[in-house]
């Protein structure tokens, strides 16, 4: 078993139905604070819908989502973002016709009304954004339009943008999807570094090598609800997991 820690994000009875199909079906899930949590499961098991319900992109039909004890069920995505959850998208999404630096500067903390007309490029925030670009390794491209970046660079840019919001918790939807192995390694080590600095991660991922090497706690999803959880070793040897994946 995973050592007991505080609950970072939890759902109770979370349900979302699309035209009679239960994409998420009464899911009770607990993610642990300060850990790298992974959510795995076969295609169509409802991971992405679950993800979208938690981040507010979709309003769940029933159930609750709590983040650090605060009920965030059905709140707007920007409210959830301000609560401290940053997210990436499955197919990486950036602002194609803005410069790399501006892409990062979009995600500043909550802006008060009187700050709305303040210049976006304050010295302090530009410095912070540059530091993040250095951290993910694309600082030399700051004046380039984001659409001119390679796919891998766009993934790194998206991550830098998420980090700009100083999230306590970062949700990554298939960070290794469509990315070459060397970049997967880079993303993996970046996740580890950030986790060591105290950021909690929730990762939806298909790449088993990455999941097993990275995560402390794995939750297996099938048919819209968790069927098994634990450390990577325990999950790997769980017969229910094999069954779900192989359809035995």
């Amino acid at each position, binding site marked *: 078993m995973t050592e007991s820690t505080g609950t970072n994000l939890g759902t109770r009875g979370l349900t979302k139905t699309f035209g009679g199909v239960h994409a998420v079906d009464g899911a009770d899930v607990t993610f642990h604070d300060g850990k790298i949590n992974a959510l795995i499961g076969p295609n169509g098991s409802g991971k992405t819908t679950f993800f979208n319900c938690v*981040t507010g*992109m979709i309003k769940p039909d029933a159930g609750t989502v709590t983040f650090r004890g605060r009920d965030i069920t059905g709140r*707007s*995505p*920007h409210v959830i*973002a*301000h609560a401290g959850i*940053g*997210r990436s*998208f499955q197919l990486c*999404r*950036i*602002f*194609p*016709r*803005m410069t790399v630096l*501006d892409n990062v*500067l*979009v*995600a*500043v*903390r*909550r*802006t008060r009304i009187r*700050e*709305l*007309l*303040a*210049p*976006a*490029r*304050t*010295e302090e925030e*530009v*410095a912070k954004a*540059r*530091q993040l670009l*250095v*951290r*993910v*390794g694309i*600082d*030399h*491209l700051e*004046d*380039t339009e984001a659409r*001119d*970046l*390679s796919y891998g*660079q766009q993934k790194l840019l998206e991550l830098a*943008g*998420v980090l700009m*919001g100083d999230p306590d918790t970062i949700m990554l939807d298939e960070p290794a999807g469509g990315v070459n192995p*060397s970049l997967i*390694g*880079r993303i993996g*080590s*970046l996740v580890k*570094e950030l986790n060591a600095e105290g950021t909690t991660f929730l990762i939806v991922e298909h790449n088993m090598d990455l999941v097993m090497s990275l995560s402390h706690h794995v939750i297996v999803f099938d048919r819209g609800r968790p069927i098994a959880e634990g450390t990577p070793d325990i999950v790997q040897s769980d017969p229910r997991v094999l069954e779900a994946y192989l359809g035995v």
Partner: protein
Amino acid sequence: MPNASSTLATRSRGPAQTPADGARRSRRNRQIASALALVVGVAVVAVFPFAAPDAYVLSAGVVILSYACTATSWNFMGGFTGYISLGHAAYFGLGAYGTGIIVRDLGLPSFLAWALAGLAVAIITIPVGIAALRVRGASFVIVSIAFVLILLLVFQAWGSFTGGSSGLVVPRPFPDLMRPEHHRVFFYLFAALLAVMLTLWWAISRSRFGIGLKAIREDEDKAEALGIPTRNYKLVAYVVSATLTGLAGGMYALWFGDLDPIFQFSILLGSYMVLMALLGGIRNLFGPLVGAVIVGVALEIFKLEFGDTQFHLVATGLLLALVVLFMPDGIIPAVQAGLRRFGPQSSSIREMTAAELAERNAAAGVSGDSVFSGGPTPTPTPEEKR
């Protein structure tokens, strides 16, 4: 536009940063060019009313400036958020009629009425904006057109209040002025209004609010996920845009003095705004102004050449279709790209980044995780790469 911090940071990173140098140089060039264009533009506006050969040309100048005002105010929504409203004539008409009706019924001074009409437009826009912005893309356009059509119906049918189809006469603010003087005064008033709009657009474009709006234009869901309250941002942009359009309409009412629902709440007027902004370039501060001058001059020539026929509709339609099909980014970016290609030194900014990019990709493959050590790491130089 580089501010103090970006220049500082670029300097501190040493001589290896040729792309940044190139970018800085090209930015400076662009800045000089913009400043030059601005000086020339201001000079032209200042001199035009005295250089114009007759009252007709002078009044055409006023019309073109009013177009520039409407197109620029349209661009507060269209340019920043990418939401294309074809019905902004609604706000033009509301501002115009609001000004006229307040002067007529309350007897307030003309320019106080004008300001109050602007306020009224802002208040009316809030519920309309809330409804229209619940949907995206196509539905938003539908609502924008529907709003102008509904107002046309109402202002035609409600004759006792609006004067109906027989029109509304707005008293002139300066009854003592002769016609050319009247045009001259309003030419400068429109120019001042335009200057205010351009300044505000510029301020927003470099603000947090502006960067949020641009993010909405690029990818609304993503912007929301990064913590931008997209619905409120869009609503504010919409209200600002509509209010400024209303102020332009009110100014037009005071200048022209005679309002008719057919012309104030006309789909055509709204489509001129879109055409002008798109033609000039909606991402650019001066795009709508450039588009307004081109389209405005063309429309005046059409009127002279073809008189009252419907030919200007055909021409407008053709021009809009051509812009949409072949130049959706507008003239200013096209010219900029052209200059960049032929210019002597600023030419290589794109190429250099591309080369850098390839070089850096190669470097990344070798140096592996070292870039992730945290904190500011110097960019690998060619030495490190080996």
